[in-house]
């Protein structure tokens, strides 16, 4: 399954891009996705312990299985600082 990943703020800066696609195995959890992202972009590894995963609709839990059909795009949300 192919899934589109979107990075924000310092993650986008560190990786040098905002979007990319990764292939994940059927049954992969959010944590599996983050591991793959870390392998692909080792520069993000230190940050990934402090992120949340989300779809454009809602936050997801890293222990949940990612359904690439229902959620073809995943956001990686670094610590937030709005306001």
């Amino acid at each position: 399954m192919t899934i589109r990943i979107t990075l924000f703020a310092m993650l986008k800066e560190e990786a040098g891009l905002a979007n990319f696609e990764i292939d994940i195995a059927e049954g992969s959890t959010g944590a599996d996705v983050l591991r793959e992202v870390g392998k692909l972009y080792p520069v993000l590894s230190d940050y990934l312990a402090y992120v949340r995963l989300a779809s454009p609709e809602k936050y997801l839990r890293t222990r949940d299985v990612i359904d690439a059909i229902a959620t073809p795009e995943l956001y990686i949300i670094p610590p937030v600082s709005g306001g």
Partner: protein
Amino acid sequence: MESLVKITPDSIDSDRLLAYLTESEGGAIDIFLGTTRRFTAGRETVSLSYEAAPNLAEKEIQKILSDAARKWPLIRAAIVHRTGLVPVNEASVFIGVATEHRSEAFSACRFLIDELKKRVPIWKREKFCDGSEEWVQGVTPSGD
């Protein structure tokens, strides 16, 4: 409860938002405005720059509003967050609630800005007078 939620690159029109809240015919309105501060720990700031996660930021604000509406009887609420460059003395966020009485207006307004800062996927980058820039340290939204 009626509400108005917006993430926008435009400057915040507080007068229009206040009019929206006033038309609610409640008895109390509380507004919080967050503005770009000039000095932080002795360093001088030129501007802040905000980035928001498309769609998700508005969705999370809607959720925070629903949470607030379960706690307090809100008549109307308005939350607007600006993105892009926000110079010193300009507002980056407007939080306003209209209620029947002042007590719930104060409580809900405080809750809304506190939750926004903890949960809504928005990031600020600070630009200082000496030319340096850095992302402001944030918090990981809870619930994973």
